């Protein structure tokens, strides 16, 4: 995971909860263009797809008011009196995130921070009296905790300079501590930052283990802390005693107590009287449960649903905040997210719609044209799984059904298997499973720890898979090798970006995206592929297939007869190109087939969504 990307992921927790672009590495075309007109267009596309409406609800889920207008809002935090909301607002063009405080009644705001490009603020928390806001800011390459008057007056105070990423979660009711966490593939740690005294404070390591940890909110009496951990295999809310003087890796004498029952996204905050606790469940439900911290043990009742955000506009934990009295909730509500699998003909007419609307992304049509494979987020569990759908009947089949997210599905050449990427125990791997969902999945290849990879194709002879990481890699699938013994081969590794390898039907060429000629624009190229020498492209220059100024977004596809290719431009135009491959590869002039109303969610640099005869095109279209 990269630079600002990594930071913004931490900071814009509300921006795109169900924008399921779970495809690991970033397509190079995501870089903002420098041409002003082109840049403005891209900025507007990002805004339209992601801008959120801050909305105030009562605890039954009745909308009370909208706060201001739609914007790139994330991480809202209601003030203790519920009259203001601190929120992180992204400026797409300037590549910054800054902290704002908005008046709930009028929507008018003041800006508390002024970040440089590719820097920003995140995770605001209010002081108990509402006079100050603490936040994390990235400046000069360092993440630090600051606080500033919530009126915006005066200068900010540096509280703690962190060696790595941190996320603030709470300001204790007695005003003595800030709590924050830091978590990565090696585990998580909770800290309390004492606010006594002046100057840089020294954090106290409160609790650490090998699991991913989030949250950490102190009970009003300061005796317990609530948090979210994936120690059971999925995220759940826990409560444990808070003892800042105990060793961080020592189990408490009592607890922890798991209080969520069906998974939790996060939040886990206390009512100011310490008698109720709230969290966001896996199915987006805002849950409440009666708790007691007055006895030596922590006591709690069964969680009850307060309300759930609609399917079309699902809102997660990072986009939700509740007042200390538990009466008002603010959510940053995204644009509608449901999508319909839709088949188009070559003229752009809708031919059919497959199944019901859902949270779909990355549809891929089987080589026999009968089925589609897709990534699907379950609205109840929040799990991201691989599904196949029968195109004729719309009947769906779960290929995976588990907590780890799967992505980048592709079909085997005979349409009998589906391959996909999933990260298990820190390792991304390629798995395959029968396309009818039966049998066990099989690990085919395991990559380096924590690595992202985008799987894009399976060679016609089934002997290679290809994926990209900025480098285009091949995985030889020798039958005499175990999955863990297989090594990826760097087929094309340069100082420019390459993506979306696609084998020609005869296996003699690989098409791919590259920004070799112009680092701001990817284009489609074809180079010879020799299965007996997979360490590098075969002899001869790369032939450029796409030729439009703004470049290609992906969707590279070879027609089965090898006489036509397809790709998508950055303007969501579906293009076709006549080609010949004997004796050498040659490409004609691309022609427009049809144009889609963009932007579409997903990563076009993985799409393989065309029927083998080039007559039909499948997209996950937004449901209005």
């Amino acid at each position: 995971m990269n630079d600002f990307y990594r930071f913004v992921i931490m900071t814009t927790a509300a921006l795109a909860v169900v924008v399921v672009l779970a495809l690991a590495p970033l397509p190079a075309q995501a870089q903002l263009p420098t041409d002003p007109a082109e840049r403005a267009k891209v900025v507007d596309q990002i805004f339209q797809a992601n801008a959120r409406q801050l909305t105030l609800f009562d605890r039954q889920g009745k909308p009370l008011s909208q706060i201001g207008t739609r914007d790139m809002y994330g991480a809202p935090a209601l003030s203790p009196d519920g009259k203001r909301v601190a929120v992180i607002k992204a400026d797409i063009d300037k590549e910054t995130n800054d902290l704002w405080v908005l008046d709930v009644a009028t929507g008018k705001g003041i800006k508390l921070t002024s970040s440089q490009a590719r820097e920003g603020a995140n995770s605001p928390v209010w002081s108990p009296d509402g006079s100050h806001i603490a936040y994390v800011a990235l400046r000069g390459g360092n993440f630090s905790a600051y606080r500033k008057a919530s009126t915006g007056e005066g200068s900010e105070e540096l509280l703690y300079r962190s060696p790595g990423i941190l996320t603030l979660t709470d300001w204790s009711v007695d005003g003595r501590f800030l709590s924050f966490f830091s978590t990565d593939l090696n585990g998580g740690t909770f800290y309390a930052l004492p606010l006594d005294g002046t100057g840089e404070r020294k954090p106290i390591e409160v609790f650490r283990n090998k699991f991913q940890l989030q949250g950490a909110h102190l009970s009003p009496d300061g005796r317990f802390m609530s948090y979210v951990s994936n120690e059971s295999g999925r995220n759940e809310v826990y409560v444990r005693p808070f003892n800042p003087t105990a060793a961080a890796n020592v189990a408490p004498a009592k607890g922890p107590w798991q209080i969520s029952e069906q998974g939790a996204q996060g939040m886990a905050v206390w009512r100011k009287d310490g008698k109720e606790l709230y969290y966001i469940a896996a199915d987006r439900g805002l849950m409440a449960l009666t708790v007691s911290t007055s006895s030596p043990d922590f006591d709690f009742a069964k969680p009850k649903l307060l309300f759930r955000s609609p399917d079309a506009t699902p809102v997660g934990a990072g986009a939700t905040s509740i007042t200390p009295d538990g009466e008002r909730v603010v959510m940053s509500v995204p644009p509608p997210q449901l999508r319909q699998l839709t088949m188009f003909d070559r003229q752009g007419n809708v031919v059919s719609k497959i199944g019901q609307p859902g949270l779909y992304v990355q549809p891929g049509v089987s080589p026999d044209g009968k089925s589609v494979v897709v990534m699907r987020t379950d609205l109840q569990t929040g799990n991201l799984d691989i599904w196949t759908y029968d195109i004729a009947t719309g009947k769906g089949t779960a290929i995976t059904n588990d907590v780890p997210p799967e992505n980048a599905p592709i079909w085997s050449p005979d349409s009998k298997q589906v391959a996909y990427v999933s990260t298990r125990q820190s390792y991304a791997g390629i798995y395959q499973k029968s396309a009818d969902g039966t049998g066990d999945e099989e690990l085919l290849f395991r990559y380096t720890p924590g690595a992202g990879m985008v799987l894009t194709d399976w060679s016609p002879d089934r002997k290679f898979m290809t994926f990209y990481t900025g480098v285009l890699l091949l995985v030889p699938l020798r039958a005499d090798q175990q999955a863990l013994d297989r090594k990826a081969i760097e087929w094309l590794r340069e100082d420019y970006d390459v993506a979306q390898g696609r084998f020609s039907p005869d296996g003699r060429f690989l098409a791919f995206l590259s920004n070799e000629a112009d680092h701001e624009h990817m284009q489609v190229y074809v180079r010879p592929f020799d299965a007996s020498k997979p360490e590098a492209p075969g002899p001869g220059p790369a032939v450029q297939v796409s030729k439009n100024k703004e470049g290609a977004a992906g969707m590279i596809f070879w027609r089965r007869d090898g006489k036509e290719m397809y790709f998508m431009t950055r303007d969501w135009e579906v293009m076709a190109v006549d080609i010949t491959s004997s004796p050498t590869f040659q490409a004609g002039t691309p022609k427009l087939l049809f144009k889609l109303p963009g932007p579409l969610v997903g990563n076009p640099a993985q799409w393989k969504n065309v029927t083998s005869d080039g007559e039909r095109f499948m997209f996950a279209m937004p449901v209005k």
Partner: protein
Amino acid sequence: MSHRTAVCLALAAMLLAGSAWAHHNMSALFDFNDRVNLSGTLTKVDWRNPHIELIVDTKSGEQVQTWSLEGPPPSFFRARDINKSDFEGALGKSVTAEASRARDGSRAGLLRVMTLPDGKIVSACPQNC
């Protein structure tokens, strides 16, 4: 925030962040809390995706220690008007660097900042910070 949630939050981040690649998770291999400061001679530059690699020879007494420093991808530097030639011009010359040390204890690090012989400061942050 869960890993899944984090990954799913990517749209705005992706589009704001620009092009960048990594073939492994930084925190899996490098400890951000364990930094090392190096002074030595830049001996090699590998300017390729998914991340550049810089080799720095340092001296510990009479013994030469060879450090491998991993940087962001070339596109990261390109967006900041830093080019391959900036590093190639420093080959064989003295540089200083700050890096997060590899968790396996090897002489490898994740580059945070490098100061080139002409005084130019090249930051790999926020990507590597």
